[in-house]
């Protein structure tokens, strides 16, 4: 599998906190790679480094064979990396249509307004927002806003999609629907890097999982391998020996 995105020895420090430390991973062409780890493991920081919100202290990020380390956000969007935020950031006063149109017109293809509208309608149908295009984005429900984040990102016709907890805050039916949408996106040839806490989604969606803790690589492999990896279990739940002891102890 040829690597679409390569992250090499990436590090970022905020004051006294080493958020990301010597992190390495790759995303293959057409792959869904999940990034997991306990809260504070540095997952969202990794996204911020990839899409240019912050510049890393050291390390390299290479996308489609070209270095993108430290480039501004808009340039990374033009290269073909789009992002759906964990904390939704709708352009609240604009309609859903205009929100998506920004993504389409300023994304990888730099489309005209007319061409952008076509893309928006297609994407809106895929994501299930086609009936709400005229609504101000601020009036959408949480689920609607999450879908808008996804739609807006997709409208840029990215080669790589960064999904930051797009399932958080959704109910089980909505999660089921969203997983279908993500599958459909991959079927169109878009590679996906996903941060998620909903394990059911990770297990059914991802080809490969990278687990982090304290900003470092912890484990990597198939979803099954990683969730059964002792280091991963320890990072999430504490020392397994201690756990075994406390389970054995009469309560």
């Amino acid at each position, binding site marked *: 599998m040829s690597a679409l995105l390569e992250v090499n020895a990436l590090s970022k420090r905020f004051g006294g906190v080493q958020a990301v430390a010597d992190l390495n991973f790759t995303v293959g062409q057409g792959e869904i790679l999940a990034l997991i780890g306990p809260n504070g493991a540095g997952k969202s920081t990794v996204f911020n480094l990839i899409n240019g919100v912050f510049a890393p202290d050291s390390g390299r990020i290479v996308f489609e064979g070209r270095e993108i380390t430290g480039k501004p956000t808009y*340039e990374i969007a033009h290269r073909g990396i*789009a992002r759906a935020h964990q904390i939704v950031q709708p*352009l609240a*006063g604009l309609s859903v249509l205009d929100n998506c149109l*920004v*993504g389409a*017109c300023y*994304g990888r293809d730099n489309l005209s307004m007319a061409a952008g509208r076509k893309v928006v309608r297609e994407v809106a149908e895929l994501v299930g927002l086609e009936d709400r295009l005229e609504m101000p984005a601020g009036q959408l429900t949480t*689920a609607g806003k999450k879908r808008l984040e996804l739609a807006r990102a997709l409208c840029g016709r990215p080669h790589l999609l960064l999904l930051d907890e797009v399932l958080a805050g959704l109910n089980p039916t909505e999660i089921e629907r969203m997983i279908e949408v993500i599958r459909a996106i991959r079927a169109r040839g878009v590679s996906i890097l996903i941060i998620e806490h909903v394990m059911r989604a990770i297990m059914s969606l991802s080809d490969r999982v990278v687990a982090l803790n304290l900003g470092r690589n912890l484990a990597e492999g198939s979803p099954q391998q990683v969730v059964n990896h002792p280091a991963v279990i320890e990072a999430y739940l504490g020392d397994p020996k201690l756990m075994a002891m406390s389970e054995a102890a009469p309560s």
Partner: protein
Amino acid sequence: MTVSTDIGRNDLDGKSLGEKNLGEKIPAFDIAAPRRVFPALIVLFGVLFALVPYWGDDVGLRESFLLAAVYITLATNLNVMIGYAGYINFGNIVFFGLGGYVCVDLVTRWHWPLVAAGPMAGVAVSLLALVFGSGILRLRGAFFALATIGVNEAVRQFVANFEPWGGATGIYLSFDAYEPLGGPMAALWTVYFLLVGVMVLSLLLSYAIKTSKFGLGLLAIGQNEDAAGVLGVRTPRHKALAYSASAFFPAVAGGLFFFKSGIIEPNGAFDLTLSIEAIVMIMLGGYGTVTGPLLGAFLYEELRGYLLTSPTVSQLQLVIAGALLLAMVLFAPGGLVGFIHQRWPRSRIILQ
């Protein structure tokens, strides 16, 4: 979902929602008709605006409308920064004053014809704005607003000490300057028509920006600059271009206005009060719309004219402007046009 409202019901197929919304659907896809009608309406408005004082041969009305045309030009262009990009430019009057100086200088010293000196002033000030803008637009919010005041004050101080432009006394035009336009009386009408033209072009520019891809990027910046960047809007360049574009017509208007006045001096040219009044006009009419600054500026000029001539309240003009701004922000934050849109959503087609 535990919370569910009519607007945001979380049904997965979205069918019932679509039906519910049909009633108040705002025709964003159906833009072909207003796209042609609206500019025509603006031009028609401009023609009437120019001809009404002329037909009546009413010099008083002309002077009042001339000032209104200047205000509408200032407010409309300022709205590109405030209403679209969300950047409050307190020092916007610097464009007007500098345009005035460049134009008057070209006419008096270099003997340029007015119709060439005006646009040249616009080009010069726009280019300067591009340079200034690239610097101060790194700032956001209150810091940007303060920096714009700083720019205006710095330019005022510079001009007040700049001898080629007459320093603190400024530049006077001799009557000869009006000869190419057929003498002072005819020149007053010519300048009036030119200013109405500048006003109409400003309104058309504002509409063109708002309906363009460039404008969409600006609106995105106005909503959430960081999110706009992540979506691919090249924010620094976008903002600088908007700042520069919003300088052009105010500079031309300044040139025409001070040519007509026959004198330009630093305190009159870089009057911060007018800067702030322009913001009041935008808030009064409705920021972010094309017609809002037009209505706001026109009403404000009429009101100001009335207050200044009424013996009881002539000193209270700014107090009333302040009270008006406060009332609008509190009770109708979208201004007049925003209020009308809210009451009658269909009015958006005509009242852009």
